[in-house]
């Protein structure tokens, strides 16, 4: 929000572009993470992230230095995601290879879960709930999350609550099936059977 009036207008362009581009480079990891959380597919996520970068670069003059750059570009990405999902109607299911790359041996004591199961669970959620849950880990504050999602803060929290409930229901599995040992055997043979 700091004014840049002390800098001559004719000298601002190149230096601002360089600074903006540096900000773009720095945000790429988070942008990819957000995109991955939205669509669950590595290739599509990178396409979304790159498109967001292009849009942000094209709209850099509309960004006010000193304001929340992360929220600004996240909003660009999520808007593009929903445009692609609605117009193309080509929501790609979660990449089955992705869990293999991100799988970690979460502790099995105290209610540990497998990341692969969590990713599959995320894919079953409505996009808005998934988006809210993912943004919780983005470093944004509540009001910023609401700004990115273009909805009231109460709606954000409601989506998070419903998303977490649905995720927990998915992770717990059907009551009549011993889901945890079956998942462990199917997803990671190195995990001890419980």
């Amino acid at each position, binding site marked *: 929000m700091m004014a840049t009036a002390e800098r001559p207008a004719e000298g601002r362009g190149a230096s601002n572009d360089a600074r903006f*581009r540096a900000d*773009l*480079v720095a945000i*790429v*990891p*988070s942008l*990819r*993470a957000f995109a*991955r*959380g939205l669509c669950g597919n590595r290739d599509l*996520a*990178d396409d979304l*992230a*790159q498109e967001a*970068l*292009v849009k942000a*670069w*094209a709209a850099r003059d509309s960004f006010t230095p000193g304001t929340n750059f992360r929220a600004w570009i996240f909003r660009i990405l999520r808007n593009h995601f929903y445009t692609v999902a609605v117009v193309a109607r080509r929501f790609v299911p979660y990449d089955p290879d992705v869990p293999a*790359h*991100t799988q*970690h041996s*979460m502790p099995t004591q*105290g*209610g*540990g*879960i497998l*990341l692969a199961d*969590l*990713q599959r669970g*995320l894919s079953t959620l409505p996009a808005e709930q998934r988006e809210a*849950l*993912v*943004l*919780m*880990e*983005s*470093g*944004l*504050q*509540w009001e910023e*999350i609401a700004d990115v999602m273009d909805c009231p803060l109460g709606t954000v*929290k409601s989506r998070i*609550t419903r998303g*977490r409930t649905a*995720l*927990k229901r998915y*992770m717990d599995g059907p009551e009549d099936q011993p889901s945890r040992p079956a998942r462990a055997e199917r997803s990671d043979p190195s995990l001890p059977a419980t």
Partner: protein
Amino acid sequence: MDNHKRPEPSGPELKAADVPRGRTAPGKADPIADGLRRLWADAEAEPIPDDFLDILDRVDAARATPTNSQSEGQA
């Protein structure tokens, strides 16, 4: 005796449902929040393809290229 007196909180008490970024109450395990945090961190930590940002250069190059329509119209 004040041996068991709690220290004054420095700010509003944080509740698990009121803070993002998985900042749950101390001592309260949240496997889902931990898993979501891990998914985000893993995706952030993935190496960025070398040509990932080249698209910006291509956009600038495309904009810098003069259009041919005007030159073609001049016979």
